[in-house]
């Protein structure tokens, strides 16, 4: 998907894809790469993305031009997958301004196998079933955009189906 690698990759990825005008667009191409962006119908699919530093090996979720750990520019884009473990969670009953979803909602702090942590809403889970350490998987939901335009494709967490 990325036309270039290295320090300009995330800037290229920020450029709008005109082929997607009627489909949901990723809320951030540097965090969520959609894999069914070719006008096929069907559930939204994708992977979390980030960068890995070729010099020190640190992984970063989301956009990066410089390595946050060693400041190197020798970065390569990496897929960070769709699996993680719930590090912490909270049930938010007073939402922040602009929150487009239901209230209350569950906010999960999830650790990826490669190390970075990813904040997102946890859905499809009874509050009483939430547990630190539970395996979760990423799922994508379309959410109306705050300022008009195509829906936003938002990454969320739900209990892992494998139930390992």
């Amino acid at each position: 998907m990325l036309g270039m690698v290295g320090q300009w990759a995330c800037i290229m990825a920020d450029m709008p894809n005109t082929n997607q005008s009627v489909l949901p667009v990723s809320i951030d191409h540097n965090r969520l790469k959609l894999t069914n962006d070719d006008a096929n119908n069907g559930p939204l699919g994708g992977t979390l993305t980030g960068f890995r530093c070729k010099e020190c090996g640190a992984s970063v979720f989301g956009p990066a031009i410089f390595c946050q750990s060693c400041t190197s520019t020798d970065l390569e884009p990496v897929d960070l997958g769709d699996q993680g473990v719930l590090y912490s969670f909270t049930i938010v009953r007073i939402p922040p301004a602009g929150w487009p979803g239901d209230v209350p909602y569950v906010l999960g702090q999830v650790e990826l196998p490669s190390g970075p942590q990813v904040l997102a809403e946890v859905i499809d889970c009874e509050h009483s079933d939430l547990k630190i350490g539970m395996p979760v998987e990423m799922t994508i939901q379309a959410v109306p955009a705050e300022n008009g335009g195509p829906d936003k494709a938002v990454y969320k967490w739900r209990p892992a189906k494998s139930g390992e």
Partner: protein
Amino acid sequence: MVVGVGLHPFGRFPDKDLSALAIEAVLPALKDAGVKWKDIAIAYFGHVYYQGMSVGETTLSKLGLTGVPIVNVENACSSGSTAFWQAYWGITTGLYDMALAFGAEKVPRGPVTVTAEDSPERYIGGDHMMAGYALRSKRYMEDTGAPATALAQVSVKARQNASMNPYAHRKDTYTIEEVLNSRMVADPLTLFQCCPTSEGGAAAVLCARENLADYGIDESRAVSIAAAVLTSGDYNGRGADHSAFSPYRTEPAALQAYEMSGLGPEDVDLVQVHDAATIGELQQIEALHLFPFGEAWQGTVEGRTALSGDIPVNTDGGLLAMGHPFGASGIRMIHETVTQLRGEAGPRQVANARVGVAQCSGAGDVTTVHILKKG
């Protein structure tokens, strides 16, 4: 040295603008120091919410146009303490004889957010200060076995201290049960475990020890600044995109401050820390090495952080009871520390207080740590 401090009460003041809140803290600070506005050689103004350009200049112009450099400082919740940090270094370089650090804020009501409209965080639901603190709370309780009542005790103590402080936003006391039964904001944090957003002003006057006599300043009431440290976030392997990911980022700043001052945690008699939520106080006093990691909750339950304990924390009520006008809070901590070290804290006075720490956090992983010393 800090030679004068002043405070405008914290609370809600719909009839006063930002300048009035600031001026009504600056004038008492000048009076406390026994100096005149024209003695001030440089001023630093901490504030966050946009109130027009060069607010520091337009505010201080009401005291007279003296031509001195005036710097507007924005560093989120640490704006006031960052202004104080800059004033310290302005004096220490020898460029200026006397400096003013002041801050004021009128924080809008409601949950505080840090990102702009249509940013990804708005859709993720993570742009919520108290949700971040809630995530920290949940994990802390899981890791340490701390019960919800231990977190609530932090807030109960804050209100007890504030009940003896005429400047506090919230002066009424409550019980652990009342804290836990207040409205749930983000599980496990209830409303009474989250600091109120507030309005207020704070000011401090700084002068080098060797210049005190030139300005006729009473040295017996001057308080030394033993360390002044400001840090931003460093890489912790998890990304720096949310405060929940690095709850102990105060530790590097604390270690720098101890090294700079030649003092250690064992020398500290009282401490003011950034308790925007109850969990904040517990983790900050652990990061300052006043308690082993994971054990501050036990110390709190045992009363060690109360005014009568061996390491009193947030003696004026902290953010939880004073409220949190961003630009003023960091200097409010200096005000309380100076007042305690002078022995002028009245019913809140900590016995034999000689060394006090003021720690303030801000979005962007900002941390300030100041160590003040009697004499």
